[in-house]
């Protein structure tokens, strides 16, 4: 490999990671703002309406507020791991964003095992939460950290298995190729409805959203692993949580709802910069629809209990995902799809 190609590769890597990192902050702001406004609407409140038009900059102000807060580390806490944990959780979310296909030509890292990479990296956040729970030297944190370990490890199995059906059908682990397959064969939603159902439930559990927010169960464990965190360290957990919601919705629409594809077939081939803009437009529309659905769920449902949650994962979702995979694989072989 000559030096030019190497430099180009390094430059491309630096540019795309910087862009992704820069993108995480406004994304989290938008998701938080949606949460504030949609929940307010369903609770018959106005919600934020003072900062900016329609209170648009409320979450931005929240972001700056956590910067100004005192950063406090308990005396008994393990300082090294205590400070490491927020970074691990945040970086897990930010790194998994690298393979999100925003539009044709707008994928930070378009490589052949993108789906495997995504689930592997997102799973790292559980390590951060477990560390946070252990390092905080607080019993609520400890219980929350252990809950997060149990919950996320259990749900990762049905979550990943539910996608394998789609992967077998499309015959690729690359997000871009999977979306191109959907352009030719129709959205994966039509081929894998059971897989979609399992994926949606398991993804809510994986990112600790209501009704599966066991980890940060505020009426039981105060704030779970985040109890002892303050200032920007807490802010990073907070950002990562909302970022994960966006990422999960993005991955779900990429896998099952055609990603950047418009709901209708025209314009069939929109190349170049225009095609990228058009793809980004549809990607964000679809993703934020599912973010809004998750927020509405939070406004509606109560939290399930920890044993009910684990029971659902091992007794219902896992067998269902297995059967789904089996049927899909058999169909692929028999009908030579």
């Amino acid at each position: 490999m000559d030096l030019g190609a190497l430099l180009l590769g390094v430059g491309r890597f630096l540019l795309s990671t910087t862009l992704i990192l820069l993108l995480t902050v406004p994304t989290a702001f938008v998701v938080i703002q949606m949460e504030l406004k949609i929940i307010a609407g369903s609770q018959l409140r106005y919600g934020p309406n003072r900062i900016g038009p329609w209170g648009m900059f409320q979450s931005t102000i929240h972001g700056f507020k956590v910067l100004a807060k005192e950063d406090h580390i308990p005396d008994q806490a393990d300082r090294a791991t205590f400070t490491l944990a927020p970074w691990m959780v945040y970086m897990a979310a930010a790194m998994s964003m690298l393979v999100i296909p925003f539009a044709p030509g707008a994928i930070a890292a378009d490589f052949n095992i993108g789906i495997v990479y995504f689930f592997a990296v997102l799973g790292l956040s559980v390590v951060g939460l477990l560390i946070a729970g252990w390092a905080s030297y607080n019993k609520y944190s400890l219980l929350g950290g252990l809950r997060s370990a149990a919950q996320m490890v259990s749900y990762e199995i049905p979550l990943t298995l539910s996608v394998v059906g789609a992967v077998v059908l499309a015959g690729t682990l690359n997000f871009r190729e999977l979306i191109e397959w959907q352009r030719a064969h129709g959205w994966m939603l039509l081929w894998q409805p059971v897989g979609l159902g399992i994926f949606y439930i398991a993804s809510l559990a994986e990112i600790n959203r209501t009704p599966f927010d066991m980890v940060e169960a505020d009426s039981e464990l105060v704030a779970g692993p985040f109890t002892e965190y303050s200032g920007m360290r807490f802010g990073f957990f907070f950002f990562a949580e909302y970022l994960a919601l966006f990422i999960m919705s993005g991955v779900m629409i990429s896998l099952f709802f055609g990603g950047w594809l418009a709901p209708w077939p025209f314009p069939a081939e929109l190349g170049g910069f225009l095609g990228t803009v058009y793809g980004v437009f549809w990607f964000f529309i679809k993703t934020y629809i599912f973010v809004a659905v998750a927020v509405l769920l939070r406004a509606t449902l109560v939290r399930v209990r920890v044993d009910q949650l684990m029971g659902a994962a091992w007794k219902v979702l896992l067998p269902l995902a297995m059967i789904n995979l089996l049927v899909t694989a058999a169909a692929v072989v028999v009908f030579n799809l």
Partner: protein
Amino acid sequence: MTSDVKIPDPLELERAEEARLRSAAGLAPAARTGGEYSGFESVGLPDRPPETEREQELYTLDEGEMLVNMGPQHPSTHGVMRLVVKVRGEVVIDIDPVLGYLHRGIEKLCENATYTTVMTYVDPMDYLASMHNEHAPAIAFEKLFGIKAPKRAEYIRALVVELNRVFSHSLMMGFLALDMGGITPILYSFINRDEVVDLLSAISGQRMLFNFFRVGGVNFDANDEFFSRLGTWRANVVKTIDMSERVITDNEVFRARTIGMGVLSGKDAIALGVSGPNLRASGVPFDVRKAHPYSIYPELEFEVITHAAGDSNARYLQRIAEIKQSIHLIDQIVDKMPHGPVQAQVPGIIRPKPGRAYGAVESPRGLYSVYAVSDGGPNPYRFRMRDPSFISLQAIPKLMPGHLIADTMAVMASFDPVMGGVDK
């Protein structure tokens, strides 16, 4: 000159004093792992040797067990209750409610007050049922003094008391959901409550601590604003209650979290002294309004509602049924309300003959009663109150072992305790 003066650390002084007291009492020095906060292991442990067998049992930890201290500053202990929970993993082994963080000595304050001013002190006890708090001493003092409130006053009393019951129960629906992580029902509950509170402030002049009852009557007659607001409220209330109920009642997750949780049998409930909706949800048809009728309840038509299951869900459904029943009672009261005065002739300073009297009412949390003794002076010689939430809380340590931490909060909320009343 001043630069030489070393200002001692107050924390060090406190520790030195503690060490001195400990050595004087013949105790071992307090275990300190260093640092500003005491150690992880000792959180929840009392800083003294156990005094009773029960304490010995609770604070002795086996392998794999841990004490979790919930409260007094915890998001869902309904005020300032503290629960010391012994857990093995997530399973509760033992539980010890520690009370007294909101103790204000209201009974003693009442003993130092005149009979008329007692009403101002009892208001903030059970702050979600202030009208009931005032009703029981009014009944007791009227017995002591040998007077009767006029008929219209009794009707107005029954009306405001039932209105209060509606908002108290409707808040319970929201708090129960909140303690399970549902964030919306509580807002609907507060909307329902606000409408009733506006009504009550139209008649009494205050939104929360009404100070409305008087010995021998009530403070104000029902005015036009009150009745016009009552009409508007009555036209919509069934719909709004149904609406907020629909978010919760048939919710699959809510049902899974409440059915079969914290089952209290009727026999146990009676043995523990639990009363009110919590007792009726265990299938025991005891209602003070029927069993020991007071005020105008004998003239009104209503049934004692019960639910057989005795679990959290039954306690919740019991409240909803009672809201509907209270609305039915309010209809009858408004229908039958006579004209006339609302205050009997009472001297400025009441001096009853020596004697004793007992007044009991059915508050939203159960049998709330007042026992007053007079020595002939201008203030009660003895004044005691039985608060139903205090008694209900006794059921928590009995029910919770074997359940999970998550259910501790949910079951506690289903008993609907109000710490203002528990700690007095």
